[in-house]
């Protein structure tokens, strides 16, 4: 997922990347094909160059080497809603087949609500970034037909629903899971399988997905991370394995 995320980033882009996999994906991109990526942090930080990983956006470790300290309004209002953010990575509890996603709450087995911390700026990023990349663990209860809470709209009901409503951003471009990489159809905006990770079978993939998948015969395999990518993440970006157990 780190390598796959990294490959979605182009040089020079302005990118929101939260803790964990998104952040490592962006750091990896900076070390390989996209050295001039500008990282944004909702707390009010632009272009940090950290020298050690911290515990989150609020950790000053993630502010080190920044060239801009401002406010949430500066970063999420005057950059993101202003329309100059290229990519936003969003972690999700649930994603549906149009890239709408939930970062608020899920249902417990007993039907009660299990509340998470709340999306924070996730809805703002989903509404305004030129593209978003959704990160979700590939489970049947996470890739779902119907969300418990649509915190961050993707393409709504698909087709031109998003544009018609007037959401300024481009919507999700990718969904990255631990089993596959998805994109979206240009017209219907329905989720579209792009590649399956090595070692995952078609049956396993469908079984772990809460909506029907169209798995083309001969669907490409996701290229595995290169040796250099593995080395960079293990030895330089996350040597203490804070965020990466098995790669």
């Amino acid at each position, binding site marked *: 997922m780190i390598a796959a995320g990294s490959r979605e980033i182009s040089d020079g882009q302005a990118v929101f990347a939260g803790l964990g996999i998104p952040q490592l994906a962006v750091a990896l991109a900076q070390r390989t094909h996209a050295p001039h990526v500008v990282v944004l942090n909702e707390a009010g930080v632009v272009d940090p160059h950290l020298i050690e990983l911290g515990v989150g*956006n*609020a950790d*000053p470790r993630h*502010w080190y080497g920044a060239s801009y300290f401002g406010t*949430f309004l500066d970063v999420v209002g005057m950059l993101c809603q202003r329309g100059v953010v290229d990519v936003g990575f969003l972690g999700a509890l649930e994603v549906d087949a149009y890239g709408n996603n939930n970062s608020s709450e899920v249902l417990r087995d007993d039907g009660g609500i299990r*509340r998470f*911390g*709340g999306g924070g700026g*996730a809805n703002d990023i989903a509404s305004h970034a030129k593209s978003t990349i959704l990160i979700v663990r590939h489970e049947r209860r996470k890739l779902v037909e119907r969300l418990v809470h649509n*915190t961050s709209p993707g393409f709504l009901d698909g087709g031109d629903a998003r544009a018609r409503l007037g959401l300024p951003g481009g919507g999700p471009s990718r969904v990255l899971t631990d089993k596959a990489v998805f994109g979206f159809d240009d017209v219907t905006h329905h989720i579209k399988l792009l590649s399956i990770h090595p070692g995952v079978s078609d049956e396993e993939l469908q079984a772990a997905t809460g909506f029907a998948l169209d798995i083309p015969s001969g669907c490409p395999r996701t290229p595995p991370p290169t040796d250099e990518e593995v080395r960079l993440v293990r030895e330089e970006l996350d040597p203490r394995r804070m965020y990466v157990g098995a790669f």
Partner: protein
Amino acid sequence: MTENQAVERSKLTSLAEAAAIVRDEDNLAVGGFACARNAVAFSRELIRQGRRDLTLSGVVLGMEADLLVGAGAVKRLIYGGGSLDRYGPIQCINRAYEQGKIVAEYYSSLAVNFRYLAGALGIPYMPIKSMLGSDLLTRLEQDTAADVVKEGECPFTSEHLVLVRALVPDVTVLQVQMADELGNAQILGPRWDNDEAAKAARQVIVITEELVSTDIIRRQPELTVLPGFRVDAVVHLPFGAHPTSLYRCYDHDADHLKLYVGKARTEAGLEEYLDEYVREPRDHFEYLDRVGGLAHLSTLKADPVLGY
């Protein structure tokens, strides 16, 4: 014309007196962001004073808010999210939410910030393009904030918009690195929603690590976060943000945050935590002793180059 060094009025006060500015049922904007720059000492004092029925607001809440909700001091939240970063979720808030013990006006964080912005600018509402098409909007309009959130059209472009009403906190509390006794407060590092929350507020309380002379403030007036005359109380308190971090002063206290997250997992555990670290300590300094005293706190001191 010679220099006019007016003898200006001091706003310096004790933590207890500053906390007494907040009344039951007040709308209180808190200034922390997850594990950073929370005015946790101020929350502990509000709990000691038995404050009730507060409305708390913030773009991304942290421990100062979680503790107040856990202690039952809060009836309503206006927020976009919250966490204790990697240490864990805001468990007291999430539990109160799940049990229906608080009303939660749950927005995108930018929408909360826009409500402060309208308050700060003296206008009754702001248009925003976030939240369109989301369940955030549906719930706010239909349930928690029908008098505060509406959909509308741009009078010029006809585009679809969300309109959010101004939020004017009764009190905003800011934890800062440096202030003078007139209330001129300077913040180092990012400031999240602090600028607009403070500029919108009826009253502002500043908790400062360092108390400096106005001449120090005048060396870099660019860093002053709002003019001193808008501030009502200045509290000089070391480690007032503990166990959250204060950039360039001290790091967050990982051990204590883990302890808190462990305790806050259950209501019984939280009560133990509140007894030991909030209710029993006579004052902030006894709290600092209980969390390890100077020997432990010294290990948190920020490296002057790194800032943490």
